[in-house]
């Protein structure tokens, strides 16, 4: 079982899971553990010859047992692909899977937050190239979410309004909008910390993926796919990114939180990465080389 250690200076938990040092590292495609098991070949994590979408407990979990869960979500049986390259219908099915995993894991007694995310690309530290995401069920509310929740709770108390709804209202002029339809909008926030950071949010207030109705879920699938396709056209190569879904925590008292998805590609140009260095890591102060308005225009034109 993982060990939680308290960081008294930052007032946050650090999770220690030493067995993760032995996790599978860049296996050749023929030995991909996320591919279906081919006839006559060694068994993979998915012991069947085909699948639509598969979810399993991580063999090298950060959280397990009474502490929480770490799951892997295989988007497709096809090894050389990506989330953005999936047909719209499959992305829509993934929205349903993400909502279902959130609902189920939130029922575990120790779980305080369910985090759906994807790391894409070696630059981000991905060790398996097969298109997949992950779900962590934490025994605490992670620090970034805790800060967001504190900000939105305080704003709601003070003004009676949803903070993120006001952020969305600030995008009405469209200068930072990348893609949108009637129900979801994708934009580079004016407070972006990564050059091509994009937020996606429903225009109507909702806290969980499971609260979206059918048209909203289709809309999320379409806008997300559109943004990911733009990412790959931006520099004419697969763009690495972290995708972080910020849903509200389980339980009562979090209605002020507005569901949104944050995407952080590490690139600042086609061949240069933004590294987190002294100011960002040592002081927590991000310095940015690209204006949100310029990044949004580039993504609209991609």
């Amino acid at each position, binding site marked *: 079982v993982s060990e939680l250690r308290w960081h008294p200076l930052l007032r946050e938990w650090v999770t220690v899971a030493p067995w993760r040092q032995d996790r599978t590292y860049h296996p050749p495609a023929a030995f991909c553990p996320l591919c279906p098991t081919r006839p006559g070949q060694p068994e993979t*994590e*998915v*012991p*069947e010859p085909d*699948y*639509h*979408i*598969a*979810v*399993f*407990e991580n*063999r090298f979990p950060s959280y397990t047992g009474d502490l929480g869960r770490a799951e892997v979500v295989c988007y497709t049986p096809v090894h050389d692909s990506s989330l953005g390259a999936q047909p*719209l*219908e499959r992305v*829509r*099915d993934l929205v*349903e*899977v993400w909502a*279902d995993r959130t609902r189920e894991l939130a029922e575990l007694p120790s779980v305080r937050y369910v985090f759906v995310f994807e790391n894409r690309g070696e630059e981000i530290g991905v060790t398996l190239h097969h298109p997949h995401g992950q779900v962590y069920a934490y025994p605490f509310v992670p620090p970034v979410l805790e800060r967001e929740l504190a900000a939105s709770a305080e704003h709601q108390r003070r003004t009676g309004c949803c903070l993120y709804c006001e952020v969305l209202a600030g995008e009405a*002029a*469209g*200068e930072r*909008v*990348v*893609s*949108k*339809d009637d129900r979801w909008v994708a934009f580079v926030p004016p407070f972006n910390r990564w050059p091509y950071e994009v937020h996606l949010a429903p225009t109507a207030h909702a806290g969980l993926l499971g609260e979206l109705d*059918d*048209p909203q879920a*289709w*809309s999320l*699938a*379409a*806008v997300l*796919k*559109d943004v990911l*396709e*733009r990412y790959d056209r931006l520099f004419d190569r697969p763009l690495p990114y972290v995708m972080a879904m910020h849903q509200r925590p389980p339980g009562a008292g979090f209605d002020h939180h507005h569901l949104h998805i944050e995407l952080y590609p590490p690139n600042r140009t086609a061949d240069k990465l933004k590294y987190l260095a002294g100011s960002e890591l040592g002081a927590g102060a991000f310095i940015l080389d690209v204006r949100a308005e310029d990044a949004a*225009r580039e993504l*609209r*034109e991609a």
Partner: protein
Amino acid sequence: LPSAEPGAGAATAAGAAGRKAAPLEKRLVRKEDGRYLIFYERPKDPPRR
């Protein structure tokens, strides 16, 4: 809005949103080491008469 038209995917969604998808079918399997594996599958169309 300046060039903020929805992409091709969004246009497709407008059509897709009109049809309500049946929920995915869920199948739970236990792996030999005790970990769970869940298959999410599209329900097969009922056989035509």
